[in-house]
């Protein structure tokens, strides 16, 4: 299978999942799409080195998560540059701008879930985003490079924290 066909197959099977993980990282729709396209670019670039030693889905999620983590750092560097120049840091888009339902097309409870996820630190956001994608513990451990037991503990704790945030934001959201 050539590179383009491989990419198309990956695109068909994983595009929505990739996008949803991106949604867990940034709220602003433009930034989301930028991040989404960056992930696709990295998938394209990494195709030549894919050896098939892990499931394609796992491999794609590794790229997605690493790109999201790297992207947050890049945005931070851009914000630093703007701030140093005395400009409004918000101009580069910090990914926390409101995302109106009519733009994102999401239901209120999903939008609320993302608002809660965005209050978590980056690694916890990553864990919960993968968990919400119905990813098994073994597969998550493979993506993260951790032991399955450790992943189980982490997920348990993150869910607890997220539940707390969900309950706290409930009054203001509903």
């Amino acid at each position, binding site marked *: 299978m050539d590179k383009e066909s491989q990419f198309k197959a990956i695109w068909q099977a994983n*595009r929505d999942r990739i996008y949803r993980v991106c949604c867990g990282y940034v709220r602003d729709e433009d930034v989301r799409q930028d991040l*989404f396209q960056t992930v696709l670019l990295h998938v394209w*670039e990494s195709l030549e080195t894919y050896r098939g030693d892990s499931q394609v889905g796992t491999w794609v999620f*590794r790229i997605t998560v690493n790109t999201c983590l790297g992207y947050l750092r890049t945005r*931070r560097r851009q914000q630093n540059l703007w701030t140093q120049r005395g400009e409004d840091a918000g101009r580069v888009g910090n990914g926390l701008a409101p995302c109106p339902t009519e733009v994102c097309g999401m239901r209120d409870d999903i939008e609320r879930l993302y608002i809660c996820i965005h209050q978590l*630190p980056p690694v916890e956001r990553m864990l919960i985003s993968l968990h919400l994608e119905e990813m098994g513990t073994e597969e998550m451990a493979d993506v*993260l490079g951790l032991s399955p*037991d450790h992943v189980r503990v982490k997920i348990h704790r993150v869910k607890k924290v997220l539940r707390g945030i969900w309950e706290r934001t409930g009054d203001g959201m509903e």
Partner: protein
Amino acid sequence: MEWNDLKNELGKVGAPDMRLGSADSAAGCGGDDLISRLRARDAEEAARLKQARILFCVAAGFMAFAFLGIASIPSQPLYAPRVLHQGVLLAAFVYIAWALRRKLRNLAKVDYAQPVRSFLEQAEQRYIFMRPADYVVTLLGLLLLGLGSAPYVVGLLLRRYIGPEQYLAAVVLYGLFYVLVCAMGLWFTRRDWERDKLPLLADIRRMKDALKEEPADEAS
């Protein structure tokens, strides 16, 4: 908060429409679909690599040509300091070019497909100010450059102003000046790194810490 309901609802969230393009459409130039843009990206990358390779060859050729040119002037007999400093300078430039290439290759070699923990470990290595190996590479380059330039500055530029008895003092003074310039360069580089990279390194370390193994006391 019902996890399963939320998961089901979340599954309905899809990626925005984006033209993927086909092999046929991508074959044309200037397409704005994804495949065309990705192909353009590959072409850009290949062109950039080609340009860098050409520049590197031109610079290396220029240095070799200059060295051979000076060494082959028959009317000007070669004498040890000139040959020595040209040779050391040439070695210094080749070494610095190699060190820069090594650095750029390491920077370009970001593997997004590795597990997150390894990805963060590699990112940490990239953002550290200087690793022990970087100190060795940098010091060796600076030493070669200093040794190569010292005979030129002291022997060729200053000899009309100083006598042979002051030659040693001039070499020592030049050495001190060179070390001072290198120290200032290092200080400015460190200052820029602290401003730009240190916060990112702190972020990476926080993420790494967040992934550290913890006792499984709460797992159910």
